[in-house]
């Protein structure tokens, strides 16, 4: 059991989208998680399973169509889910918790120089900061992260895709946030830029520029290389959480099993595994199925699965999964194919 200090604790967080027609879509459904100082957590899952919505929901700052329903988000012991939105904006965003959007390529205002945006960001939290100080701070950070200081005086259009991405990451960590949430920060990049971005995340952790990292992606091999733990989401719920190695090589939940089976990880033992896709699509979250949400697509489904509410079960060292079968039953089922 790790004895590190818990930096992010989320209890039963539920958020929903309200559509134009007034329907509710519960994209994050009673999600609980913990991240310790200096640790990183990866979140995996198919498109539409709620990964990105979870990232948005963790910020504690909601704007339509996303709405907060219930649950708590504690950063370093402080509950931000009950705070007034303007206080969240001034005291929390960027400083305690920061975000790197999915399309970081377009995350910068096209008609604003990078340094002008940095000035706006810093002045939210540090009203008296002079332009001179801000420039010096930004330059020091950029150079530390291997970005040329000349980037500061450029417009986003003058930067390459990879450079833009790294610039956005640098801006996100300007105020040394305790939690950094990166939503698919590398999916739009070529492999070389991807590698630089990954190296940058490692450096952020090692240099203590961020307290902890939540990394969202559909690229599992990447998670295995970057994060300590991996959490798998399905239809707005957590279906499994384990350390990175166990999540990739020894998944318990049939969905995780299917997800891991559908990728190639160049590691020993996986050489002879046949690639398999999971048939079907995730359920519509306007009317989530009662019982197990994965039942429709599960190879091992029983009639009971469709009616019983399935809770997360915890087995050794914080490893959890959501299935009515016990660990042994699952392992046996996988053995028999």
């Amino acid at each position, binding site marked *: 059991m790790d004895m590190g200090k818990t930096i992010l604790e989320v209890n039963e967080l539920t958020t929903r989208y309200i559509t134009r027609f007034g329907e509710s879509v519960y994209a994050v459904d009673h999600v609980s998680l913990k991240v310790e100082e200096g640790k990183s957590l990866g979140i995996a899952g198919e498109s539409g399973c709620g990964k990105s919505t979870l990232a948005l929901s963790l910020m504690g700052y909601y704007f339509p169509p996303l709405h907060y329903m219930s649950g708590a988000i504690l950063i370093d012991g402080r509950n931000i889910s009950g705070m007034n939105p303007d206080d969240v904006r001034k005291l929390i*965003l960027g400083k305690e918790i920061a975000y790197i959007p999915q399309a970081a390529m377009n995350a*910068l205002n096209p008609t604003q120089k990078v340094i002008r945006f940095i000035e706006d960001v810093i002045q939210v939290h540090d009203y008296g900061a002079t332009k001179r100080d801000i420039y010096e701070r930004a330059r020091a950070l950029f150079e530390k992260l291997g970005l040329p200081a000349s980037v500061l005086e450029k417009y986003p259009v003058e930067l390459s895709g990879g450079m833009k991405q790294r610039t956005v990451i640098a801006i996100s960590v300007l105020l040394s946030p305790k939690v950094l949430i990166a939503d698919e920060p590398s999916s739009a990049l070529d492999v070389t830029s991807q590698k630089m971005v990954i190296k940058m995340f490692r450096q952020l952790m090692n240099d203590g520029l961020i307290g902890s990292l939540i990394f969202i992606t559909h690229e599992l091999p990447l998670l295995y290389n970057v994060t300590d733990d991996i959490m798998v989401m399905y239809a707005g719920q957590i279906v499994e959480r384990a350390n990175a190695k166990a999540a990739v090589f020894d998944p318990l939940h049939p969905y995780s099993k299917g997800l891991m089976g559908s990728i190639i990880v160049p590691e020993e033992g996986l050489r002879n595994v046949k690639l398999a896709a999971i048939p079907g699509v995730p359920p519509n979250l306007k009317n989530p199925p009662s019982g197990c949400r994965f039942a429709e697509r599960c190879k091992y489904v029983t009639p009971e699965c469709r009616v019983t509410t399935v809770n997360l079960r915890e087995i050794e060292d914080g490893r959890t999964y959501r299935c009515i079968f016990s660990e042994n039953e699952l392992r046996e089922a996988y053995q028999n194919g």
Partner: protein
Amino acid sequence: MKGYQKYFLNKLSWFLITFVFAFLLNFILPRLMPGDPVAAIVSRVAQGMSNTSGVQAIYEQYARLFGTNRPIHEQFFIYIGNVARGDFGFSISQYPRTVFDVIRSSIMWTIALQFPAIIVGWLIGNTLGALAAYLKGGFDKILMPVSIFVSNFPAFGMAVILMVIFGVALEWFPTSGGYGFDLIPEFSWKFIRSVISHYQLPFWSIVLIAIGGQAIGMRSMAIYELNADYVKYARFMGIKDRKIIGYVFRNAMLPQITGLALSIGTMVGGALVAEIVFSYPGLGYTILNGVMGQDYPLISATTLIITIMVLSANFLIEILYGIIDPRIKAAQAD
């Protein structure tokens, strides 16, 4: 700055090339109209004369005066020389007034009518469009259909509707002219009041149509920008909504500025309809008279003014854009 110089020179050379062609067309097109305007004047002057050789002599005198006795390419070079000296010659239809005099007396009416109308329409339209995008809901649901409805009125339709309602039925404002027909232009309260009340109907007929179009354009640009990724990112970095709205409207405004500059450029041509419907003594009305009277010098001079205004407006936009929007500079410099 080298990239920008190249951009500037590129735009300047296009400006000059377009100007040369437009200048040529301005000269040739009116002269391609069938009919002989000189004959029309002569028949007016020579009314009641029975002496054929006398009429012939008068015709030749006028033909020499207007230069129509020479071959067209010679006329063209003489025209260039005269224009370079600022001399547009005599108006044929309003002889003996000079073209310069005719234009001088009408252009101020057009500018005073159109310029404020365009600016007011643009400001109101953009403000409403931006508010509709930001507030959404009921405001948007009412404003949009109304804007679409109003902006699709043809200009003359709007002018006639206003004239019928406020001029004929309610009799709030006079329906024609720039000032009372019984007054002479002077600085007196009576005259100024008359000008202001004559001003209302043409002014609002232009403003109303402009508001609708601008509001629609601004609304869709602002909605697009409000959903851009940089807005979400800026929000999550704790930037105030007010500041983000500033980013959004600056970006949404760029295409709208083009629209503004273009409508200022096409001001004179755009004035035609409102001025004709309300018999407003502006340049648009003058152009119409010029065309009716086959007044080559007057048509060429007025169309030249339009050409210069449109081209300069376009040129200015491109230059300003290069400064305001780094994306355009980057795309055009290489």
